[in-house]
């Protein structure tokens, strides 16, 4: 079935190599951490540490918590990262008896989110408090979803507005609604053109990869921390390639730069 014409796409030799190297290095990171050779500590993420504070405030005020993963599909990394955090928040809310609203825009997120949040309520020992109506799909069009969230946040006067996931233009709509409701706001996304709005209007912001590593940070599992260590090793490789490549290029040796293009 597969004949002998198998070849690597031109221009992708480097990528294939990097892809394999990356998997290997992350594997190494996991191995070193799980075996206890290295004990890496992840830098503090104030945004994640503030989650409990925001839920606590909602408890005091007797007002709900709103969490959204934005407009990404279930395969979007930011949505997957957001869901991990949502599981934790939902459980805390269930324990403290705070109403928890979860919104998203892509239908593929629906079953996963429902299952995750129902499970969180069960783990908290209050499965009867779970209402599927609070896990809301508000159409898959960006701005009608945003309108729905805007209305919900203001009407329910949420005390904590957690925006962790994939956001595009609607980021400011959400944070403005949160401001009107007087909520603590924690936000995170990797979309560079939405980060400025989160930084200026929200209380805490997870910038780019901080959002994606948040799940590992919260879990404190050795294996998960190991992947972060591996990720940092790849970063070092990138930095080294960049540093050495630049210096060589400036003194006139362009080989490394050319190799990067193959």
């Amino acid at each position, binding site marked *: 079935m597969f004949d002998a014409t198998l070849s690597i796409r031109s221009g992708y030799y480097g990528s294939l190599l990097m892809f394999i190297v990356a998997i290997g290095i992350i594997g190494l990171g996991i191995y070193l951490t799980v075996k206890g050779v290295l004990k890496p500590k992840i830098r503090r993420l104030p945004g994640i540490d503030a989650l409990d504070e925001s839920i606590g405030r909602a408890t005091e005020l007797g007002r709900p918590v709103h969490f959204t993963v934005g407009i990404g599909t279930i395969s979007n990394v930011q949505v997957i990262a957001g869901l991990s955090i949502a599981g934790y928040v939902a459980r805390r809310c269930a324990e403290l008896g705070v109403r928890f609203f979860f919104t998203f825009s892509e239908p593929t997120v629906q079953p996963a989110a429902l299952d995750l949040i129902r499970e969180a309520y069960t783990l908290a020992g209050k499965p009867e408090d779970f209402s599927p109506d609070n896990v809301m799909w508000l159409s898959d069009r960006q701005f009608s979803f945003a309108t729905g969230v805007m209305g919900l946040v203001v009407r329910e006067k949420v005390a904590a507005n957690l925006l962790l996931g994939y956001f595009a233009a609607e980021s400011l709509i959400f944070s403005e609604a949160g401001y009107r409701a007087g909520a603590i706001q924690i936000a995170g996304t990797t979309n560079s*053109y939405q980060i400025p709005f989160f930084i200026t209007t929200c209380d805490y912001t997870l910038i780019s990869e901080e959002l994606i590593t948040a799940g590992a940070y919260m879990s404190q599992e050795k294996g998960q921390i190991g992947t972060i260590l591996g990720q940092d090793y790849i970063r070092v490789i990138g930095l080294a390639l960049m540093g050495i490549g630049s210096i060589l290029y400036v003194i006139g040796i362009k080989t490394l730069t050319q190799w990067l293009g193959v």
Partner: protein
Amino acid sequence: MGTKGSKSFIEKLQELDVRYVYVLVLLVITVPILRPIGIPPGKTSPETLGLYRYIDELPSKSVILMIADQSPAAAAECQPGMLAIMYHTVAKGLRVLFYASRTDAIPYIDDVMVKVLGKTSDHPDYGKLYVNLGYIPQAEVGLTGLASDVFFTNKDAYGNDLRSMEFFEDLPKKDASDWKLAIYFGASSLDWVVRQVTDPYGCPTGGGVAAVLVTRIYPYYPHSVIGFLSGLKGSAEYELMIQKPAEAAAGMDAQSLGHLAIVIMIVLGNIGYLASRLKSQGGA
């Protein structure tokens, strides 16, 4: 600012209801729309120039792919640019292949063809110089398919068979390496065009994008993205370069005043903030 009156004014400014800000924005933008004041357009930005020159220097009959990805929400920014580029390509006698990567962008292709050519599939050059592939689902995946085989969809938007069209006859490879430029119109992301067309096939990317997207394009500019129109301003510049000022150029006054208003808001907000900080430091 030392007097008692001005201090309380600053304090009042700090507590101002945001709705007054809204009213101000509405006024600042409405007035120049109804009564243009004629602020001179200024220099053309290098990104617009890059795209204009590249298209201008293409030999006639070169193939350009135009990807319509503008939702109704972003069309206000992208459509004037798409029109201006289309005028230019028609004047240069280039071949244009259209496709929509989302369903709500379909009408914008017809809109461009009607406004520039007067007709869509009934136009005598349709099938020779212009082909509208219609909607191809699954943005990135769809483009990957189209890039590896131009007959990916088999039929055009109006149900005509692609293989019988003169447009494709003299294309050597029938994949993206035949194209000279792929222009993306929209507001969501241009990365996937670079990823699926420029990097694998060497066909450069251009853009007529919403200004939000602009900062995300710079990492690819100018080596992969040869030039782009940034929002309404870029479209207005292009309109002026092909000497057909239209909708975008008409909006420039409102644009200028709008920006000025927001800068003034930031300054006012910061004056209030600094004043209250100085005061609290003085008191402590």
